[in-house]
């Protein structure tokens, strides 16, 4: 763990409020550990944009085969945090991160780790649907697979499977060669999810995946998340607390780059331990 050197007054004030590891998250006896998916563990994560300290010494666990929602007011560092998980944060000029992010115990920030390998294991869906405009529906989904040299019948089969998995198959099967940007916004976002799952990652990160979608499209994506959680570990950043309540198993509340509380979703929304969480989920703040 990398110790945070500059202890600021605010950080001191909040230190000790809320346990490091919430025992409410411990599995109840009799609930079997899921066989699929992989877990992510964050220890002492700090992220910076130049001098700006966006994430301040965060510890957080994302359990295998579960959906974890990250909520918090704008600018609390939740998007920065999620972008640290697949090392996309460092793509921003002047940005850097320290601390450890472990995928099943493997440190993603170890110096010998190939960043492209990390991103193939941990897929990402962005806020705005971003299909590649020069590519067809098929090629969009195939884009990631082609990186690893998948070809021919195998490629076709995987693309079709991914499109079926996101419920897009019946809508696009007759227009696989048409441009991906010709689809509606909701379809485009599901296409992007198909693109992410086609390479069969261990974890899928979603950074406000529904904020650019209408309610019907949002519902479809939420249903999709519910189906996908059996096979993937999902981390979703959302501004929409109802959405967090609907789709997630556990919810983490972040404030000023720090974790305030991480507990089963039902507890966060009905019986939060921290008064700041309560103020946020009841709409009195943020």
């Amino acid at each position, binding site marked *: 763990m990398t110790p945070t050197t500059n202890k600021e007054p605010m950080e001191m004030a909040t230190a000790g409020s809320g346990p490091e590891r919430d025992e409410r998250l411990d599995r109840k006896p009799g609930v079997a550990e899921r066989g699929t998916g992989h877990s992510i563990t964050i220890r002492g994560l700090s992220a910076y944009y130049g001098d700006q300290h966006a994430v301040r010494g965060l510890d957080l666990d994302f359990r295998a085969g579960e959906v974890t929602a990250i909520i918090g007011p704008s600018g609390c560092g939740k998007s920065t945090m999620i972008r640290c998980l*697949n090392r*996309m944060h460092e*793509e921003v*000029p002047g940005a850097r991160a320290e601390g450890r992010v472990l995928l099943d115990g493997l440190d993603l920030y170890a110096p010998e780790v190939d960043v*492209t*390998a*990390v*991103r*193939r294991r941990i*897929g*990402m869906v*962005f806020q*705005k649907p*971003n*299909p*590649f*405009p*020069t590519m067809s529906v098929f090629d969009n989904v195939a*884009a*990631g697979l082609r*990186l690893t040299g998948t070809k021919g019948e195998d490629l076709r089969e995987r693309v079709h499977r991914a499109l079926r998995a996101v419920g897009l198959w019946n809508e696009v099967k007759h227009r696989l060669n048409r441009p991906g940007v010709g689809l509606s916004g909701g379809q485009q976002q599901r296409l*992007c999810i198909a*693109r*992410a799952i086609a*390479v069969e990652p261990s974890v899928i990160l979603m950074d406000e995946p529904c904020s650019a979608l209408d309610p019907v499209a949002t519902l479809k994506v939420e249903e999709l998340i519910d189906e996908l959680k059996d096979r993937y570990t999902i981390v979703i950043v959302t501004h929409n607390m109802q959405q967090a309540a609907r789709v997630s198993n556990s919810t983490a509340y972040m404030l000023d780059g720090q974790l305030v509380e991480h507990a089963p979703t039902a507890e966060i929304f009905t019986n939060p331990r921290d008064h700041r969480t309560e103020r946020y989920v009841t709409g009195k703040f943020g």
Partner: protein
Amino acid sequence: MSVTFTLSPVSSRRRRTDRAMWGVLLALTVLALIPLVLIVYYLLRKGLGAWSPSFFTTDPTGSFFGDPGGIRSAILGSLEIVALASIIAVPIGIGVALYLTEYGRGSWFAGSVRYFVDVMTGVPSIVFGLFVYIVLVTSHIGGNFAAWKGAVALALLMLPIVARSAEVALLLVPNGLREAALALGAPRWRMLLRVVLPTAAPGLLTGSLLAVARAMGETAPLLFTVTFALGATANLGQPMNTLPYMVFTDIQSPRAAIVQIAWGAGLTLVALVLILNLLARAIERRSHMA
């Protein structure tokens, strides 16, 4: 409910000002169009008469009193030289733009490169000709005057135009697409090759064509690098005939038939650039449909 406010009508003064400004802007637009229309009009009126099948299929004879011949060698020469110049300038120019937008963002080196590219855009074309004359012609590298030396001068002229327009085209590619490709685990070079360049392709093509059109009509860089030849040749190591050079020499002739050839060559030059433009657009559209 009582109305506590009024919606005042547009004052007659504002209406008058609006009319006047509308008129001024329209007049300026028409004024700008006049030279363009006149150029096309004169080109067609004076040049079209020179056009005939033999005009495009025979080389100039150089004879003053007899049959002056056609412009075949000039068309071929211009196409050859500009093609070579494009082969040199377009990849380098796009490479510079890729460096500026994708790798050197915000670095002082990229900043100064951008500045000097801008300075290069303003360098008069004859200076590029002079430079190549001094460096390549007077030094007798590969003979005296040669077509490829003219292509180098034109490439120098095209480079900043390609680089600057390519930079604009690349900056228009949404960052979300770069992130999407990187998030799939694509290495940077692959992201550029598969996503950024294809997305920017229409802009890159337009910018390159702009440079091609510009180079096609330049005379000054060819004057003392390529000079002139009557016959058509595919040998880039020799002097060559070119359209702008032919216009330049023939228009000074006291004989009307030769002056008309200059007009015909000028019209051909404009038509050639137009055809190249339409061709590139058609190719671009087709590749987008697929």
